[in-house]
């Protein structure tokens, strides 16, 4: 189970730079400004749920207003919830590895699987153990993506990008950026060595360290999402390791030279889910909203959100041909077949990983 520390770290690093300002606003204005009346639904979500194209159809259908509060990490969400009164919030978007932790705080309502379009969702996601606690479902996956490689296909050989060996390929010396998030990067290296992320032990770390440090000659810079995007767009690097659709998909409609993929050796997934608050006074409306987001139309809007693009969980998501191409929609079955979820490791392993990461950054 991911601790609060891990959830803060996990979410802050992945999305803080795309959600930052909005998240801060959420933290500083805890309660919905308009209060909680019969014609409103209060949702605590990531920035990709704030688009009108996602919310307006539901508001129009139910003649309600959706009050959206965005946050930048499960830790921040829990903090907001703890400063609110029970029943203030109706729907929560959550990183699925954090579901057991939030359930442990008694915040989430059990979900009746018969009311959810589970058969429409991609199988590997619905079977993910994270959504259940003691056999009861508390979250349903709505969107996912990968840690892989994003690149400029005018500068690299796309065939090279399919192999994790590209991380050490001399051809790209000094042309590589790394998205600054240590444990997925090291888990990717582990996968390239045939070690599954959840099986990484202390004994594996010296080998992973050696491979990580061996990457350094290829590395031009290490940075957050905005920084690595800038480096790729400005031509300072040709690829971003540990990046994928969440880094470049939103840019690809206007920058068709950008692309992304996962490695043949295996992909590393992140998954976000929807939950309903146990104390919600509008559970029916909240579950209707969950179903709206999971609907083909809602999934299309969510996948191509202005904040960041990623794969919809629903295989029937309404996407244009161009959007499907950008999201490599036709390849998802194969991608999912060789991908595993990124998991939060044991505290001692995690601490050692951070030390190795610091050493990697410092290496000349």
């Amino acid at each position, binding site marked *: 189970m991911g601790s609060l520390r891990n959830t803060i*770290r996990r979410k802050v690093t992945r999305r803080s730079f795309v959600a930052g300002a909005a998240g801060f606003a959420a933290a500083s204005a805890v309660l919905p400004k308009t209060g909680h009346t019969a014609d409103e639904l209060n949702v605590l979500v990531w920035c990709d749920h704030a688009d009108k194209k996602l919310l307006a159809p539901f508001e129009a259908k139910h003649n309600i207003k959706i009050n959206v509060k965005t946050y930048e990490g499960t830790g921040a969400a829990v903090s907001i919830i703890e400063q609110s009164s029970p029943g203030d919030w109706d729907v929560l978007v959550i990183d699925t590895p954090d579901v057991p932790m939030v359930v442990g705080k008694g915040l989430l309502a059990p979900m009746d699987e018969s009311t959810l379009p589970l058969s429409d969702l991609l199988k590997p996601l619905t079977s993910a153990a994270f959504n259940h606690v003691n056999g009861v479902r508390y979250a349903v996956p709505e969107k996912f993506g990968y840690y892989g490689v994003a690149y400029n296909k005018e500068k690299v050989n796309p065939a090279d990008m399919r192999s994790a060996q590209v991380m050490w390929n001399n051809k790209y010396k*000094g042309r590589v950026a790394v998205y600054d998030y240590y444990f997925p990067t090291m888990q990717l290296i582990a996968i390239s060595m045939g070690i599954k992320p959840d099986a990484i032990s202390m004994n594996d770390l010296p080998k992973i360290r050696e491979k990580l440090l061996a990457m350094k000659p290829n590395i031009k810079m*290490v940075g957050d999402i905005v*920084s690595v995007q800038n480096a790729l767009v*400005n031509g*300072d690097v040709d690829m971003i390791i540990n990046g994928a659709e969440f880094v470049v998909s939103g840019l690809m409609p206007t920058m068709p030279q950008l692309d992304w993929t996962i490695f043949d050796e295996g992909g590393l997934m992140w998954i976000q889910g929807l939950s309903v608050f146990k104390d919600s006074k509008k559970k029916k409306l909240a579950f209707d909203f969950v179903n709206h987001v999971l609907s083909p139309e809602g999934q299309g809007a969510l996948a191509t959100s202005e904040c960041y693009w990623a794969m919809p969980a629903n295989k029937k998501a309404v996407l244009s041909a161009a959007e499907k191409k950008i999201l490599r929609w036709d390849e998802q079955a194969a991608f999912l077949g060789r991908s595993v979820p990124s998991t939060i490791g044991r505290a001692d392993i995690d601490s050692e990983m951070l030390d190795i990461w610091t050493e990697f*950054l410092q290496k000349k």
Partner: protein
Amino acid sequence: MSAPGKPVAANIQFELSRWAVHPAIIFTLVFFIIPLVAMVIISFWQRIYGKLQASWTVANYEKFFGRDYLLEALYNSIEVTLLTLAISILLAYPLAYILAYKVPSRWQRFVLILTVLPFWTAYVVRSYSWLLIISENGILNVALIAIGLIDQPLEMAYGRGATVLGFVHFFTMLLTLTIYANLVQIKASYHKAAADLGANPLQIFFRITFPLSIPGVAVGAFITFVIAIGDYITPQILGGSTEVLVPQAIMLQIARAANFPMASVMSITLMIVVVIVYFIIGKYLKMDRI
């Protein structure tokens, strides 16, 4: 009750002054002294298996000073800061001198405004703006290639050079202000007297102007040192994390591992460096001269 021999008005003024200082004392106590003491205490604790253990140990200090890649962050910070300082002073001094002695007084205010313009933009924006200039597809490379000076873009972004560039851009302006403020206080009569006694312009500069301007340089240099060595944004954005400085190492410990004890050790080390620098240049720090 008024003190014997003192006028009542003076006593009231004294009492008011005494009470007026209390908010500042309370503020300093709450927001500086107590957090500082807490940081020192926490630096002797440990984070084990994801939990803070309030057991007294010097393990964090041993780790910081015992691992090359952590100690190197301190060396990097000091090197980058000293390099920034040296270049900034070399650029700022002539600028301040020209401003104080060569620019007509009616234009000085306007030039001063131009000097402080960089302060009007946000730090993060300024750093990202530099990337637009020095990146491979940036304005500078495009211009150099267009005029035929180079045929391949220069690699300027992401590294120590870019970090120092970002720092120098900011701190040259700061140092210019402190040095200028000091130079304009030097009485013109000193220069005239020296000239009357036969000193040439170089002698006047090295024997009168420069020695008297050292407090302005010292104050600017100290402020520059304190801000630069503790800065996180510039090395993170322009440096591209190709090397780790102490503020970045602190952020790694806090944001990624919530390891406040280790972060405290690093912060205290940084503070000790600043205190040492203060004692080295303290005798030149005369705030009344700027």
